[in-house]
């Protein structure tokens, strides 16, 4: 089993990325050359985008983290009202394609934006707009990481600090902040990686502002220059690999912060603090809902922003390339990715963690399972295009089909699915397998009859994560989808590019609603499964 998993990982990840690296250095005569890198670095406009990308990532960190920290702090360390609603709203951007916030900004502050006059002659297009859109997109990811860091508070430390007479300000800087610092590092790495690898916002709102991701997109789709595309993809891959590596290290440190003897933290009542946090969190939630509402309004009016009378013409999607079918295609892909991905990742985690044979292979697989997080979607998508397009490749038959979309998407989001499975399985008593072996049942029986039912809620959550991401991703699939299988997220991009504002907004919001419905249903299902597994204990130990 471990061998099978390693083989799959090599075919689905290592080999394509290897081909990508190879194509970036192989000259027309078959030798190794750095000419493409040289040409890239000598082109002033391309060199400019390299620097701009770095600056964008840095600015995204400094703008996102304070907002996300405030929001996470409000949810975890205060007594503000409507925490549940705020938390749910904070994650809404995850359900929409990354280009939706950028589109909303254009509708508000673009050339024909509703609020453009407020900018006094300035325009949103360019670095500022991209940055704003990236902040919205990365915000939920940062909030999730920071909430984890802040929720792991050791109540004993706070009691001790209070006993010693420390002021709330001092407690914040000496207890809260140090405990959350690895969470902050980890959130910074994720924000940076998301900001520099995103393709949606730069296309929609970038104007003349160029970034690496856009370069890959243009080189490959615009100029059919795969070698240069590979070079840029490699330049994009290096920092994200580095940063995701640092993120993993920070995560490991973070989880070591909480000891088994920690006690829970209960926020003390404070009207001033809660009032301030409520204002801050409320404003952020309002901004998120506002951006989504703007998109919905654009889809429902005759001619934004000139004629705001209601109209359903934008929903006549059949007129556009892809149209309604592309939504169905996306749902089909997302379902396949969710089911296949959750099953494969869970079984893979079971084999790596709970079987005893072939330790070297299991270790190798657990390392390879962490790699996809380091590969930007565009780099992976291009790597797939290069690898499977080659007629000499025995897996060439996959190219241009549905299967390759599923494989690429599952691979792209594999790391989170794998790690979630691993931690779900870790909660399972390590003596389950020996206990079953003593009764004449092998690991396969334990997997089906014990591990799977117990981890069913986690499996539903993994499937949800994969579904939502498969619905919204553009970068992995943009080089891979066949002409007769248009996807909704790509259709939004194309419609927006063509200036069809209303339909693009309508399609983008449709994706959002599908994801919202699936997430509500999935979380309800996971809750039911969880309650069924753990009835309230009637007797205590002893």
């Amino acid at each position: 089993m471990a061998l099978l998993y390693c083989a799959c990982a090599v075919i689905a990840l290592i080999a394509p990325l290897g081909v990508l690296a190879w194509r970036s250095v192989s000259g027309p005569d078959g030798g190794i050359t750095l000419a493409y890198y040289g040409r890239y670095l000598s082109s002033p406009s391309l060199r400019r985008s390299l620097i701009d990308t770095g600056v964008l990532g840095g600015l995204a960190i400094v703008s996102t983290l304070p907002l996300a920290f405030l929001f996470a702090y409000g949810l975890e360390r205060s007594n503000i009202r409507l925490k549940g609603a705020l938390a749910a709203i904070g994650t809404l951007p995850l359900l929409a394609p990354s280009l939706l916030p950028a589109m909303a900004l254009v509708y508000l502050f673009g050339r024909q934006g509703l609020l453009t006059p407020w900018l006094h002659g300035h325009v949103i297009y360019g670095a500022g707009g991209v940055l704003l859109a990236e902040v919205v997109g990365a915000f939920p990811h940062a909030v999730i990481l920071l909430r984890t860091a802040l929720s792991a508070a050791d109540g004993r430390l706070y009691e001790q600090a209070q006993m010693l007479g420390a002021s709330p300000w001092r407690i914040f800087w000496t207890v809260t902040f140090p405990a959350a610092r690895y969470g902050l590092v980890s959130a910074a790495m994720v924000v940076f990686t998301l900001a520099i690898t995103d393709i949606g916002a730069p296309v929609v709102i970038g104007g003349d502002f160029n970034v690496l991701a856009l370069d890959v997109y243009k080189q490959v789709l615009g100029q059919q220059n795969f070698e240069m595309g590979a070079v840029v993809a490699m330049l994009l891959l290096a920092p994200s690999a580095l940063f995701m590596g640092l993120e993993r290290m920070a995560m490991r440190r973070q989880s070591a912060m909480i000891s088994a003897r920690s006690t829970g933290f209960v926020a003390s009542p404070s009207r001033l603090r809660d009032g301030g946090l409520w204002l801050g969190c409320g404003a952020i939630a309002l901004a998120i809902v506002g951006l989504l509402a703007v998109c919905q309004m654009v889809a429902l009016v005759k001619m934004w922003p000139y004629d705001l009378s209601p109209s359903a013409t934008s929903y006549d999607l059949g007129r556009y390339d892809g149209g309604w079918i592309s939504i169905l295609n996306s749902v089909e892909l997302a379902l396949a990715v969710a089911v296949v991905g959750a099953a494969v990742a869970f079984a893979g985690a079971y084999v790596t963690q709970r079987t005893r044979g072939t330790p070297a292979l299991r270790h190798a697989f657990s390392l390879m399972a962490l790699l996809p997080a380091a590969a930007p979607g565009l780099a992976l998508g291009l790597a797939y295009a290069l690898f499977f397009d080659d007629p000499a490749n025995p897996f060439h038959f996959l190219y241009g089909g549905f299967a390759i979309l599923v494989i690429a998407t599952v691979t792209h989001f594999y790391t989170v699915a794998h790690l979630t499975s691993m931690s779900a399985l870790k909660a399972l008593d390590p003596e389950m397998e020996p206990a079953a072996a003593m009764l004449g049942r092998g690991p396969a029986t334990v997997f089906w009859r014990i591990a799977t039912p117990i981890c069913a809620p986690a499996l539903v959550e993994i499937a949800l994560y994969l579904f939502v991401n498969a619905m919204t991703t553009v970068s992995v699939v943009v080089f891979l989808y066949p002409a007769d299988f248009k996807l909704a997220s790509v259709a939004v991009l194309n419609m927006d590019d063509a200036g069809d504002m209303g339909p693009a907004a309508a399609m983008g919001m449709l994706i959002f609603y599908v994801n919202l419905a699936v997430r509500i249903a999935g979380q309800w299902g996971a809750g039911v499964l969880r309650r069924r597994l753990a009835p309230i204990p009637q007797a205590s130990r002893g």
Partner: protein
Amino acid sequence: MLSVQGLSKRFGAAVALDGVDLEIERGAFTCLIGPSGCGKTTCLRVLAGLEPATSGVVLSEGRDITGLSAAARGVGMVFQSYALFPNMTVSQNIAFGLSRKTSPLVRQRRVDELLQMVGLPGFGARRPVQLSGGQQQRVAIARALAPEPRVLLLDEPLSALDPQVRERLRGELKDLQRRLGVTTVMVTHDQAEALAIADHIAVMRAGRVEQSGAPQDIYDAPTSAFVAGFVGAMNLLPARVSAAGVVEAAGLGSMAAATAGFAIGEAVQLGIRPEAIVLAPPGMADGVGARIHRREFLGAVVRLDVLAGVGAVPLLVDVPAHCAPLSDDALRLVLPPQRLRLFAVD
């Protein structure tokens, strides 16, 4: 009925078992005890067939079962955590190891019979989380017994419980074992538990069986200073055989003891149990002078921590609570020769 000969187990360079020999009698309750890392759990897992032995054989009724799988050995095991399957009911847990070829009706009858046997009739529909620790343990025993194993292995089955519950349950465990008459091997690090429950004890140390025998024999006649110190409390003093029947204990002076097996002039360890030391009646000139350094009230007995002899040698002395000296004044201790034991120096 179960016989282990020259069993060794290595994990890479680490030696977990280093030639274990063990005889397990039919129907008896055998305890493997020893400090952590002595290999007792590894030994149990090799007996169970969960770990392959590096060398040596395991015989069951004279038949070599060393190469057989866990299930084929006819051995049942109860794990430290009980390892009950949390998603299944008590009945499903117990039925897990029953052959799928038997009809559901027969299986259900067997499950009911086992629940009756462990004293949990009517608990079949519950889930493990709805049971107390003691009840979980009994379900684990019922599950292990379901396929009718010849031997039942218990890996620290009492260690997950609170101290009071543990004492009650070890009695119940012993009753159950005697009633069923199933050959049982239990691993524990708690020597008091082993003394209380076992028919036969094997004391392990560094991958070997150091001594085995009935609990009373192990307690009364330990063959090494290690066993003496591990099972019960024992005062161990450096000493030297000065003549046949006489030892010279450092700081205490000469005293009579059985020196058979030791050469004149040989360095030895002199051992005496705290309860074997006798307080001389006031006014007697017998024994060694001592003064009380600290006293611990243990309920039925008082443990005196005394400094004895010219060398102020620390000794533990247990005296019944009603006989404990009232003051910490000087007292005299008698070390009865028949209760002194000599051990080779490690």
